[in-house]
Each structure stands twice: as structure tokens, then as C-alpha cells.
């Protein structure tokens, strides 16, 4: 490396020494036939098409570099990094509790899984895994399974939309909306919840929350039946999805592909069963699989997983009815000092807590201040925690140096890993099948790039 480094800029120059003389085209919509004519006139045998990073069918800012021969894809590469926001680095400069507000923004379609994985890892480092109240674990399971439903609905809905089936999209998003209302009711936010905290959850389910969730699940199931009727016997979907994006079990294992993609190849591998957390071993549910190992099998698996998640949600709601108790560990050195409450000016610290710290107990005020500004200390060491994310196995690697902030936080995002399969899924197929194959991976670029 030379001593004078170039100033960083967002993307490399398109024109440099290596690309001089190579004709390039920029498609801006409606001009495809002109480009095709010009390309045919030039008679180039090798044509490389950039699909994305701004393309409605690539699930966000994914860039696909396709080498094509007519309509056949001969080589496919995925380029990522367009949504890299340095969340892992940022987490090293915030307290352990504040880390939740960062990691929830990684995979924004399934935020509660990052929160849960991160908090379970922090609890493992603190050695308080068994002290987390049962009610908090039940609420975590409920929230995660609701989130799994919304995430799978987004996958099915956008996957259908990319094939031109807008009704699948509207139906999926309508069902998802019911659950987002429940998220707002319970956590206060539709996304980026920061609801699961080290030691428990931020606040208990509000009065009437359990009933509202029960009612919402009825509606969700109603919409889901309609979606299933619309999709599962649809001859167009069968023709577009069957046999497309094939990846067998050996390929999945070699590429570290987990989640619905792995289960569509026939292996019932699910972290909720193999290494249970949050008490998943006590819930009654099945791990659906398919044997086709293609995009259609993944739709079948996701559809069935939504039903299994509904089943778990109902069990969790029943348990919430009969399990009272706190939703945060009893250890006041770790538990967030205040509970949230709704006041006349919106949500904030409960008035009872404010009254205590401001009016009656100076020690309580000092304690609140220290825990909020400094945070708690976590004994030195490292921990690895995996949870079953809607897209596969999410791994959280945390290192503590005994301080109030993570020394290193790494998230093994399942979509980051699964995108490696893009080439093997797409090569040899048609360009139109690339859209189907990528949709069957269901990548969320916020999680991929972090």
C-alpha cells in the first residue's frame, strides 16, 4: 500500500483503465428494446447486466451482477454493502442496554429476534439466564412468534408482488397489519421496538393486551386462509416456482444455509428444538419440512410455519393468563429502574417512580441515575447465542471486557449467509427465475449489511 491513500467515496468509478473501450448502457425504463438493438448490433457475446442495487425485485439494495446469454443466466454474483451502517461498531460505544436499540434495526422485518438473541447473550454473560422471570420469557416467545408470522407474510407477499400478483401482496400486508397493531399496543412501536431488554422486557403487556392479541390472531388466520387459497392451488405460481432455485441438502449444509431453505430440503433443523431458549421446549409445535428443495417447497414451509407460530402464540397467551409476576429480573443492579406508563403527555417513566426518586428517596434517585448513565457491568468473557430467526439461524457473538459497554458485538445474520447461495440458485436459469430464486431466499438487506 502506498502512503497516500485515496479519499474514500461511496462507489468505485465506473470508468477506469480496465473498462476503457467496453460499451456500457444505463437502462432508465422503457428503453430496453433500444439497448437490446444496440447490443445486437455490437454483437458482443458476453453481456453483463447489473440488476440493482435500485431494483424493485431485489428486496432492497441488493446488487446482482448477471452474465447472460440471451435470457439464460450463465453467471450470477451478488454484491452487498449498500446498506452498511456500522451498527456493530456503534454498539461498542453504547451501554449494554442501549445495544438493544441498535441491533433491533439490523433486520428490520424481524427486529424482535435480534433483540431476543442479543439479550439472551447478555444474560448468558451475566449468568442470569435462569433468573429471567417466566412471564418475561412467555412475552418474548409471544412477540417472537408474532414477528415470525409478520416476517413470513412479508416474504410471501413481496414474493408474489414481484411476480405481478398484487393481490397476494395486499392480502399478506393486510394480515401483517393486524399484528403490527398488536406490536404497537404491547411495545409502543410498529418496528424498531427495543422492547426486549437484558433481564426481561421493557414493560408488561398492557391491560386488555392478551384479549386484543387473541382477537387479532383470529383475523390473521382468516386472512391467512384466504392467502393460502389464493396461492397454494394457483397454477401460475406452480409453474413459476416449482423446480426453480433448487438447492439440495448437501448444498445447504456446505453453504451454511439454515431456516426455511434448509427445511425445504428435508432436514427438520430448528434451533427452537435442537437448542431451546426462552422455554421453547415446553411448547407444542412441529417443524414443517418439504422435500422439493425449490422455491415452491420454501413457500410451503413458510406457510405451514405461520400456522405453527399461531399455535405457539395461542399457548403463550394461555400461559400469560395464568402466569402473573414481574417481567424483569429481581436484581436491582441490572433491572432497568423505571417501568413505563402512559401519562397525559404520552409514554414515559411511571409517575409513581418519579414520585419516589424525586420526592422520597435520594438513594433511589442516585441508583436510577447511575444505572441509566453508566449502565451495569458485565463480567469479562465471551458468549455465543443462537435463535431461530424467520430466515435461519441468527448467531450473536458478544465479548465483554468487564465494562459497561460491549467490547465486541457480532451478529451472524442468516440472510447474509444465505445470500451466498444466490449463484448456485440462479445460474443456468432464466432471468425471470432470478427474481423467484432471490425471493425464496427472502433476504433483508438491513440484516445482511448491518
Amino acid at each position, binding site marked *: 500500500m502506498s502512503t497516500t491513500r485515496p479519499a474514500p467515496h461511496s462507489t468505485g468509478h465506473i470508468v477506469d483503465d480496465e473498462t476503457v473501450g467496453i460499451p456500457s448502457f444505463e437502462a432508465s425504463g422503457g428503453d430496453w428494446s433500444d439497448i437490446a438493438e444496440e447490443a445486437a448490433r455490437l454483437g458482443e457475446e458476453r453481456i453483463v447486466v447489473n440488476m440493482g442495487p435500485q431494483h424493485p425485485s431485489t428486496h432492497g439494495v441488493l446488487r446482482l451482477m448477471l452474465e447472460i446469454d440471451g435470457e439464460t443466466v450463465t453467471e450470477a454474483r451478488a454484491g452487498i*454493502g449498500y446498506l452498511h451502517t456500522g451498527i456493530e461498531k*456503534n454498539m461498542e460505544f453504547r451501554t449494554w442496554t442501549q445495544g438493544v436499540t441498535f441491533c433491533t434495526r439490523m433486520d428490520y422485518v424481524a427486529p424482535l429476534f435480534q433483540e431476543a438473541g442479543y439479550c439472551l447473550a447478555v444474560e448468558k454473560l451475566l449468568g442470569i439466564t435462569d433468573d429471567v422471570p417466566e412471564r418475561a420469557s412467555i412475552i418474548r416467545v409471544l412477540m417472537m412468534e408474532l414477528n415470525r408470522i409478520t416476517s413470513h407474510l412479508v416474504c410471501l407477499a413481496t414474493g408474489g408482488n414481484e411476480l405481478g400478483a398484487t393481490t397476494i401482496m395486499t392480502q399478506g400486508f393486510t394480515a401483517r397489519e393486524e399484528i403490527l397493531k398488536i406490536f404497537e399496543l404491547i411495545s409502543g412501536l410498529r418496528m424498531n421496538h427495543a422492547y426486549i431488554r437484558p433481564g426481561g422486557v421493557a414493560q408488561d403487556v398492557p391491560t386488555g393486551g392478551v384479549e386484543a392479541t387473541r382477537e387479532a390472531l383470529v383475523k390473521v388466520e382468516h386472512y391467512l386462509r384466504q392467502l393460502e387459497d389464493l396461492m397454494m392451488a394457483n397454477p401460475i405460481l406452480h409453474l413459476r416456482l416449482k423446480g426453480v432455485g433448487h438447492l439440495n441438502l448437501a448444498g445447504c*449444509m456446505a453453504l451454511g444455509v439454515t431456516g426455511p431453505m434448509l427445511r425445504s430440503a428435508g432436514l427438520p433443523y430448528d434451533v427452537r428444538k435442537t*437448542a431451546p431458549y426462552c422455554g421453547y421446549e415446553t411448547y407444542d409445535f412441529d417443524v414443517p419440512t418439504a422435500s422439493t428443495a425449490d422455491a415452491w417447497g420454501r413457500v410451503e414451509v413458510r406457510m405451514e410455519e405461520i400456522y405453527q407460530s399461531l399455535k405457539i402464540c395461542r399457548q403463550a397467551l394461555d400461559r400469560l393468563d395464568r402466569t402473573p409476576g414481574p417481567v424483569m429480573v429481581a436484581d436491582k443492579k441490572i433491572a432497568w429502574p423505571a417501568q413505563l406508563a402512559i401519562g397525559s403527555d404520552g409514554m414515559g417513566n411511571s409517575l409513581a417512580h418519579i414520585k419516589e426518586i424525586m420526592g422520597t428517596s435520594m438513594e433511589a434517585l442516585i441508583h436510577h441515575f447511575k444505572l441509566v448513565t*453508566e449502565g451495569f457491568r458485565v463480567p469479562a468473557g465471551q458468549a455465543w447465542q443462537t435463535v431461530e430467526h424467520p430466515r435461519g439461524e441468527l*448467531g450473536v457473538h458478544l465479548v465483554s471486557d468487564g*465494562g459497561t459497554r460491549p467490547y465486541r458485538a457480532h451478529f*451472524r445474520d442468516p440472510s*447474509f*449467509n444465505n445470500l451466498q447461495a444466490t449463484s448456485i440458485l440462479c445460474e443456468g436459469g432464466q432471468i425471470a427465475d432470478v427474481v423467484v430464486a432471490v425471493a425464496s431466499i427472502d433476504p433483508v438487506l438491513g440484516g445482511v449489511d448491518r
Partner: protein
Amino acid sequence: MSDEKKDAAKAVAPGTGATAQSTTEVALEAGAQGGPEVARTPLDVVDVRQGLFGAHDSGDTSGYGGLVTTIVMPGPSERPYGGWFDEVVDVLAELLDESGTGYANAVESVVVDRGELTVNVVREHVVEVAQHLRDDQDLRFELSLGVSGVHYPHDEGRELHAVYHLTSVTHSRTLRLEVAVPETDPHLPSTTSVYPANDWHERETYDFFGLVFDGHPGLARIEMPDDWPGHPQRKDYPLGGIPVEYKGASIPPADQRRSYS
């Protein structure tokens, strides 16, 4: 900051430095694992902190400034490790001895902490260890969940760590391989020949930490632009950020705010 830590780590290294005698004793006591004194391994000191409250930018207003705390990473464990850990290490040792590499040459130490098994491997043999872990029928760690890096600037000669997370679907087990390399020579062999899944993970670790995985099919940056200078996740790389004006007050960026450790 990192210089401070380096000094501290030197000061508490066993048998050196008479100036920090009290610290050395504290550290040795903290690191004593019940083994014989001669076999004592150097402590993996992360930090030596003064005072009770973790604040660095103010004077000793509390009177607790004289307190010294040595932060040590969990050290090597003694047998028995417990559970299936012994079996896995035994099988691995047998395989490494059979192949002529030798267990002692390949594995630096075994750490059991918080119910997790970490095997510290010498970089030359990481591919062979991974191969055995994947292929032997009693080990069968078929699924690699990727590589992550950690930068310990104070850990002289072993600044950069690559951490591999392996899972056995067959036996429902998880373990961690850890390889430490110096910052001045950040090379280690690529494991993509054993676990193709590590392709992008190694690219990411290269991108963020500058660990060079020799033999990787295309070790290019993956998250940052190709011409980006530096490796952003290293501890000496600044977080960046600008002060934010809010209602007349200026709020400094996160890495320049008052912080506690």
C-alpha cells in the same frame, strides 16, 4: 487508551515489573485455577482499572481512586471439562496425534466458560482442525455459522482474533475455535476448503479487521467500498460522527461523550 492498556498488561504479566507489585498479586490470585504454580500460564489481562465508578475524565472526588481492579479473560481450563467437552477434545487429540501434527502443536488451550467450549488453535493448523471436526463421525461439526473477528490491541503479538462458530447438527453441539495472530502479520489460512459457507464471513472479517485469509478464492472487501482505507472494526479506528446541535446546546458524537468502563 490502548497504550495505557498495553502498559497495564505488561505490568501485571507474572514475574515482571516491581512497580506494580500489588497489581501482580491481585492478578495472580484472580488467575489461579488450582493448578501447580510452575505450570501457571500468563494471564489474559484485558484491562486494569482504577477507582470504583469507571469514570476517566474527572479527579478522584470519591476517595475510591486508589482501588485497582484487574480484568482478566477466562483462562485455560483444567480437565475434566464436563459434559461432552472431554469427549470432543479427546477425539480431536487422538486425530491430531494420529495425523502427525500432534495435539500439543495444534491446540494452544481449551477454555470452558459459561457452558461454552472454546478451542484456541495455532493458525497453521486451523484448517486441519476444522477438517477433523467436520469429518470425524464422533465430532461431525457439519455446519459452520461463520467467522467473526475481535481486536485486542493490548494483547501484544496476538492482537487479532478470528473466532469460528461450529455446530454439529448430528449431535446438537456447538463449539468455538479461536485463532490469534499478530497485527504485524495478520495472515491465517482460509477455511473455505472445509466450510464453503465461510467465504463471505472471511471476506467480512478481512474487511472489518484486516485479517488476511490466505487461500481464499476472492478476498475482496464485502461491506465497505473496494477502495476504503483502513479496517473499521479495529479498536484504533475512530467511530466518526459530528457534534449535533440541539436547542442551542452541542451534543458530542458517541465516542467523545463522557463514558464509563
